[in-house]
């Protein structure tokens, strides 16, 4: 494959320079010339120029002014400034605002200019390559996310049918008709469903977009309790929610965080406990929200406290997936939140979180 020659635009008000440039470089490059900034812009509008060389000292628009003027509309071409005198002010200005790649004094040395154009073109290529790579990567990442997302939904639909059938079996009084088989099917289905839900949460949390919206903690907590307490109607919830003003935050992640913590509080109760209680305190201020969730459940062993937020950490006798708290921690990381935990075995656990208010 032969590479098409590098497209170079040279802008200079002195016709002789344009001619000399053409004469020296026409064999190596595809050269376009213009005798003013306005003419140069016309060339840019019509052609994907890769390297621009501009004389600094031109009537009307100087080289630096020209580069500044195209920095937004044509950010890609690499810029080289030519100037016959050393004007420190112009140079500083050029470097600060014009995004100049090289500065070359006039009269130019053919070899030096040639090398500069060559290097400029390499810079141009890597810039474009990098951008394409990023685009490609974003696309693949996006596809992967969407794939996980839709496959999780697709997997879940038939699973939910299975759970529905098990419910029917219960309703028709057949649950104990085949020993413990139905019970086993139910427990496996629920476990699978739990993993699918956590996978979905994990992948949604991994996406970097955050959807900021106003959050009403009372409403949110009520919904979450409603959602998770159907598995256990015995637990009493004491809510103390103090939200005098608005709170702006990432509703999906906050929902995931509270959902996991509240469902854990319900799940890790003591079977022997007759008064299962979960206390939820929420204090919203203009700067942050403080949330604490306390249960009187099983508690966590001291030596486990540091590990509970790591992926796939499970204890021997619990029914968890090792994902819930890991996801909580990941989600908090994405929204600059903090979490701390205090627990004593068989007394209960308190999780405290702080999330900045995006007001």
């Amino acid at each position, binding site marked *: 494959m032969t590479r098409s020659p590098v497209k170079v635009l040279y802008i200079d008000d002195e016709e002789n320079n344009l001619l000399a440039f053409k004469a020296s470089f026409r064999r190596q490059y595809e050269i376009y010339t213009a005798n003013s900034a306005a003419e140069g812009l016309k060339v840019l509008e019509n052609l994907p120029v890769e390297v621009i060389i501009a004389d600094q000292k031109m009537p009307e628009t100087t080289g630096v002014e020209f580069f500044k003027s195209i920095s937004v509309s044509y950010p890609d071409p690499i810029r080289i400034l030519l100037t016959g005198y050393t004007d420190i002010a112009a140079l500083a200005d050029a470097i600060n605002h014009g995004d100049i790649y090289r500065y070359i004094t006039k009269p130019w040395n053919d070899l030096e200019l040639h090398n500069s154009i060559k290097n400029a073109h390499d810079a141009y290529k890597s810039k474009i390559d990098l951008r394409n790579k990023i685009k490609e990567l974003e696309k693949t990442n996006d596809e992967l996310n969407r794939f996980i997302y839709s496959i999780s939904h697709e997997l879940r639909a038939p699973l939910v049918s299975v759970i*529905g059938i098990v419910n029917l079996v219960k309703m028709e009084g057949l649950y104990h008709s085949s020993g413990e088989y139905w019970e086993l099917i139910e427990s496996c289905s629920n476990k699978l469903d739990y993993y699918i839900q956590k996978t979905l949460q994990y992948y949604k949390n991994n996406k970097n977009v955050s959807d900021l919206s106003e959050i009403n903690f009372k409403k949110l907590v009520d919904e979450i309790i409603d959602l998770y307490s159907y598995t256990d109607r015995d637990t009493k919830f004491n809510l103390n929610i103090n939200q005098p003003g608005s709170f702006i935050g990432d509703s*999906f992640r906050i*929902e995931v965080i509270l959902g996991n913590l509240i469902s854990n509080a319900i799940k890790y109760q003591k079977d022997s406990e007759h008064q299962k209680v979960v206390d939820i305190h929420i204090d919203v201020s203009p700067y942050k929200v403080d949330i604490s969730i306390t249960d009187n459940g099983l508690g966590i062993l001291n030596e486990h406290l540091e590990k509970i937020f790591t992926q796939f950490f499970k204890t021997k006798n619990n029914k968890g997936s090792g994902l819930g708290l890991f996801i909580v921690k990941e989600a908090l990381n994405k929204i600059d939140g903090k979490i701390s935990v205090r627990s004593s075995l068989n007394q209960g656990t308190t999780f405290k979180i702080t999330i900045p208010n995006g007001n």
Partner: protein
Amino acid sequence: MLIDDNIIDLKINNKIILISKLFDDIIQFQSGEDALNYFSDHANEPDKMPHLILLDIQMPEMDGFEFLENYKRFSPQLKDSCLVAMLSSTLDFGDIHKAEANPYVIKLLKKPLIPSELEIIFNANFKIID
């Protein structure tokens, strides 16, 4: 009326509603189009109109929301005596919010359908009619 592309879910939900004994007749459709045709065909027969539609969200071709867009066009008399609840296994917040925001949808039910949820809807909306 049940609208769901998944025949197994139709069977399951049909059975659950039967067991709940809350409703007398159940009409099932495997697509939104079929259900819309039923409405057009029986527009003048009020006794053939359902009191409650349980509508799946994810269906090929016409999904639950598209069904509602078409359902909107039916006469107010028909819609007044017929409630719509969506029934889905979705966990997509987009879908959930969209369902809650739709004026025709009284509730988004999650699969698997639980008789007590059905009863709540029944008690809230049909008790007085009886």
